[in-house]
């Protein structure tokens, strides 16, 4: 209980800080409306121009398609709010997917899933510790971990996919409950937990404080290193969860799966209005950002836009997201 008393004290001493954070949390600036508006416009446009888009089948299909990116982005939101970012998540997806597949084939589904998740937590812990305690930049640390983790994934699998996973494991990735993809339920659970943690726990508020101004938070008695490490652990965990789900969806542990997802998930979080400078962002908005990317890709495919041009469009969205971020930042200052 000592810990709790300590927390109360910290909270008292940082009332003014946490008040501004709370007002920020409540303040709905115009930028926050932008993603929902863009999303609505996009959906409306697609519904109007394409007969297949607004069908139940396709919407469930989109839900299935975005689930992996959504789960990764949930953890990424924590890291970005805390003032960092994580390039290693794509490789963690590959590592946890293939590791859980290897373990699963020998020791069963439970052990496999646990192994995959632990691997992600470990990578997150290493990332977080190096960044917070050794003060190495997130870019270099997580880039290094990206390469290392990818290497380990290729090493443990010998470069080949791990096959023959149990049938009921595949259900996690491609099964349905009352017509809704299982992975969709998992997304909802992950985001609900994440939202509660960010809004209603001292950990969540401290994460905003650390991301907003690390030194100020430190002076107010927040254990900055622990908070930062925790955000990376959360990010590693969600990436690993996504990796396990992807393995279930592909019915194999693929050591090259998830490549490039780190950039898409960072883009989704930024698109959702978080700032790469930290201290800002909301999980619900991240989910909208993910939805935007997912619907955009789905729509471009449905509209038969050649892939090369799809990339141009998607890249433009990322830059647009950054523009919005800049404008909003200047707005709030």
């Amino acid at each position, binding site marked *: 209980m000592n810990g709790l008393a300590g927390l109360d004290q910290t909270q008292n001493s940082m009332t003014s800080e946490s008040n501004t954070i709370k007002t920020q949390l409540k303040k709905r600036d115009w930028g926050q409306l932008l993603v929902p508006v863009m999303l609505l416009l996009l959906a409306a*446009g697609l519904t109007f121009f394409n007969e297949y888009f607004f069908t139940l089948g396709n919407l469930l299909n989109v839900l299935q398609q975005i689930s992996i990116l959504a789960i990764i982005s949930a953890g990424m939101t924590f890291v970005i709010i805390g003032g960092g970012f994580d390039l290693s998540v794509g490789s963690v997806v590959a590592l946890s997917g293939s590791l859980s597949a290897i373990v699963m084939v020998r020791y069963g589904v439970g052990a496999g899933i646990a192994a995959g998740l632990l691997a992600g937590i470990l990578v997150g812990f290493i990332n977080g510790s190096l960044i917070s305690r050794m003060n190495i930049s997130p870019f270099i640390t997580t880039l290094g971990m990206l390469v290392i983790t990818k290497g380990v994934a290729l090493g443990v699998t010998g470069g080949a996919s791990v096959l023959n996973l149990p049938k009921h494991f595949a259900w996690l990735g491609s099964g349905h409950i009352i017509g809704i993809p299982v992975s969709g339920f998992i997304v909802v659970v992950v985001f609900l937990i994440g939202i509660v943690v960010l809004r209603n726990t001292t950990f969540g508020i401290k994460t905003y404080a650390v991301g907003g101004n690390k030194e100020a938070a430190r002076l107010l008695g927040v254990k900055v290193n622990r908070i930062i490490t925790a955000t990376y652990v959360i990010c590693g965990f969600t990436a690993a969860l996504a990796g396990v789900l992807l393995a279930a969806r592909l019915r*194999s542990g693929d050591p090259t*799966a998830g490549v490039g997802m780190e950039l898409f998930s960072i883009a989704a979080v930024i698109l959702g209005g978080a700032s790469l400078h930290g201290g800002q962002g909301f999980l619900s908005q991240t989910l909208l950002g993910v939805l935007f990317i997912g619907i955009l890709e789905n*729509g471009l*495919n449905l*509209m*038969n836009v050649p892939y090369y041009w799809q990339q141009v*469009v998607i890249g*433009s969205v990322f830059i647009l997201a950054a523009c919005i971020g800049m404008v909003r930042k200047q*707005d709030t200052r």
Partner: protein
Amino acid sequence: MFSAQRKKILGLALLMMFLFTTLMIGCSSSPTPGEKTSENKTSGDTKSKTKTFTVGVVLASSTNPLYVSMNKGIQDKAKELGVNIRSVIADEDQTRQNNGIQDLITAKVDALLVSPITLEGAIPAYESAKEAGIPVISIARTLKRQDIETTYVGMDIVQDGRNIGEWLAKKLNGKGKVAMLKGVAGASFTMDLEKGFKEAIAKYPEIKIVGEVNSAITKEQGLKNTENFLTANPQLDAIYAANDELALGSLQAVETAGRLNKILITGYNGTPPGLAAVKGGKMTVTTVLRPYGWGQLGIQTVFDVLNGKTAPNPVAHETKLVDQEILKNINPDELK
């Protein structure tokens, strides 16, 4: 304050421009759905002769030269057959491929032509297509699952190996020493090629395989291993290489040793540098995979299936073995 206002306007303007562009691109390049439905209505029950089919194409890669020219073959032949093509490009990413297939199923294509990336990983997408009643034809790689894969358009690599063996035996007059650069250990195509080659050579008791080595498929490995072969067997008559890259490396070693044209070198793949070496009389023989023709055969097979014909499984794509003599007289189209 004023500048913030202006920035907001700028942001909104960018947003509108972007959405507008997206829709423009989308509209300009999607005449398919409307066309198709009207066609459907008019053709109705008058069999498929007047109906315009739409085929979804999802190849494994958009940059690998093999798939680039396969895709070209598909596009050109589709135009000739009057088939609409909708392609999604997966770039060796199984998730992207599955999502693409799912989207094409949603867009109600009549059939799918797919080169699956990881075999096992592609199964869920094939299953969804089956559920939607859309036939899936595999090209270049096969799931070997007849329940969900309508047929497979592929080449018979074992036969290619036999052809190389037969050709070499003839050139050697049924007698000589051969060393083998077998390529990657455990890869199915290198093993199949090796199997066919050895089958053919086994018929000639006086042809001896004096060396065999697995390696990565690079020029360096071809060079290094051939040097070793030449040291161990000064009387070598021929070198089998599982790929043109290996053969080109081997060629360098043979040339350095002053044995050019005394040692026969067989390659495989028909890459442009490989073909040039055969044309120049340095490398003795290679096999061209004809990816363009492969793509044509692929879409033709899909067309036949859609028109109710039963396609054999697998549909055999023929590669072509070429030496300097054949290259001199060949119509370049036959190499495509």
